[in-house]
Each structure stands twice: as structure tokens, then as C-alpha cells.
């Protein structure tokens, strides 16, 4: 049951990425190109998503517990450590190089572009390396 619900939610998330234009690296790179062919569209993606989640999370969290889980798994950390600085810095460089972040890259997999087929295995390898390295550090995984 949870598999099917998650499949439906992944589908909704993916269709949202496609409808919004976020899944198109050309649009992402133009959004990031403030000094050139700037396309402000993706500010509306983040605006729309944060608006719905800001209100929706408050309504949902007021329930006290989720429908199918034992509790809400919410990150509780507030400290700024080296990992919260270095991780996003590296991620941003990669995002600016390829125009893909993890969600949009996964929606592109089925379309089979050469660049995507190079990006996805490298991304998975990077994720795994970070997890295995992270096991040794004191920083707990919160998200």
C-alpha cells in the first residue's frame, strides 16, 4: 500500500517538475544565468511549492501523527557545521554545470538522453560515497 501511495506521490512530484519546466536543464541554466539569458520562471516553481508546503505542513503537523507512520520524521538540528556549508557548495557547482538536480535528473532517465545516462550513475556513485564517508563522521543524517 505504501509502495503505491509513494508511487503516486512520486508521479505527482515528477509531473510537477515537468509542468514547471524545472526538469529542463536549459531552463534551469537560464534561471541561473543572471547576467545573460535570464529566465525567471523557476522562481515561480519554488514560490508555488513553498507556498503550498508552508500552509500544508502546518495543517498536517497539527494532526499529531501521520496516517501510515509512527511519527513525523522532522529534522531537528539548528547548528551550522562544515557539512551544511561544503555539501550545498559542491551540489551547487554540479547543478550549475549540468542543470540537473536529483529530482529532475530522475524524471529525465526514461527519455534516455546521452548526458542523462552519464549523469545518473555518477550521481548515484556520489550519493553512495557521501553516505559511506558520512557513516564515519559525527554528523547525524537528518533529512
Amino acid at each position: 500500500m505504501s509502495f503505491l501511495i509513494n508511487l503516486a506521490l512520486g508521479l505527482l512530484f515528477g509531473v510537477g517538475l515537468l509542468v514547471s519546466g524545472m526538469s529542463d536543464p536549459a531552463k534551469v541554466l537560464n534561471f541561473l544565468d543572471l547576467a545573460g539569458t535570464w529566465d525567471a520562471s523557476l522562481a515561480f516553481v519554488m514560490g508555488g511549492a513553498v507556498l503550498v508546503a508552508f500552509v500544508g505542513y502546518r495543517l498536517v503537523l497539527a494532526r499529531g501523527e501521520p496516517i501510515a507512520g509512527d511519527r513525523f520524521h522532522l529534522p531537528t538540528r539548528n547548528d551550522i557545521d562544515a557539512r551544511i556549508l561544503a555539501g550545498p557548495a559542491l551540489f551547487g557547482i554540479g547543478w550549475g554545470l549540468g542543470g540537473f538536480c536529483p529530482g529532475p535528473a530522475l524524471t529525465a532517465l526514461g527519455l534516455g538522453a546521452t548526458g542523462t545516462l552519464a549523469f545518473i550513475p555518477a550521481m548515484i556513485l556520489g550519493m553512495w560515497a557521501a553516505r559511506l564517508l558520512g557513516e564515519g563522521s559525527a554528523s547525524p543524517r537528518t533529512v
Partner: protein
Amino acid sequence: MTGFTPLASLIGGMMIGLSAVLLMLWEGRIAGISGIAGRLLPPYRDSAFLSRFGFVIGLVTAPIAMIAVGDVEVSQTVSSNIPLMLGAGLLVGFGSVWGNGCTSGHGVCGLSRLSTRSFVATGIFMTTAIITVFLIRHVIGA
């Protein structure tokens, strides 16, 4: 050039937000793609593997479903520079898991929860991404 699409982008963004809210309602988890995808690999710390697998299958099949259901055009212009895309993939994968989140986990879910760490993370990845694009397009001139 890509066309300015504020309405489609807003609607798509709201669908992303709705998916995140419903995932929290259903099983109380954050819709962070790097966290979901990164935990499909061992070691396994909880029993949510099938849920995460389902979410990723949904993401991957989304364009196929859209093309099958509607007469929509799915447009993705991906660079075919293999070394560039390999490097980009490594950095995105490593950085997003090392920093506990990506555009979805920090940028959408974290900002909505007014998380300090997510505001810091989002500010940093937006900055390094903008600098990277500036260097490539306007300094190196690729």
C-alpha cells in the same frame, strides 16, 4: 533562450508542494529527493525501502505517463558533453547527500519549515550554481 512561463511554473511548483505535504501526511517523511534516492543504497537504517523505491519509480515514469496520457510535449535539453555530465553528477550526488538535502529537501521542504540550516544551504547552492554558470558562459565562454 527559454520562454518565460510564470503560470505553468507556478502550477508545477504547487504540484511539487502538494506531493511534499501528502508524503508528510501519509508517512511523516520529508520529500527530499537526495535523501529518498540516496537511501536506496545500503546500509539500510529503517524499513522504508519500498516506499522510497515507489517514489523514485513515480519520478522516473512521470514523463512517460505524461506523454501517454496527454498530448503534451516533454522538453529537456541535456548537454551531451560526457565528462561534464559525469563531473556534474558526482558533485550533485555527493554534495546533496553530504549537505543533507538538495533543491527539494532544503529548497522546498526546509524553507517551508523555516529551518535555519535549509536557509543557509539554499543560499549557498544558489550562489555557487550562479557563479558556476557565470564562469562557464561569460568568462570561459563555452
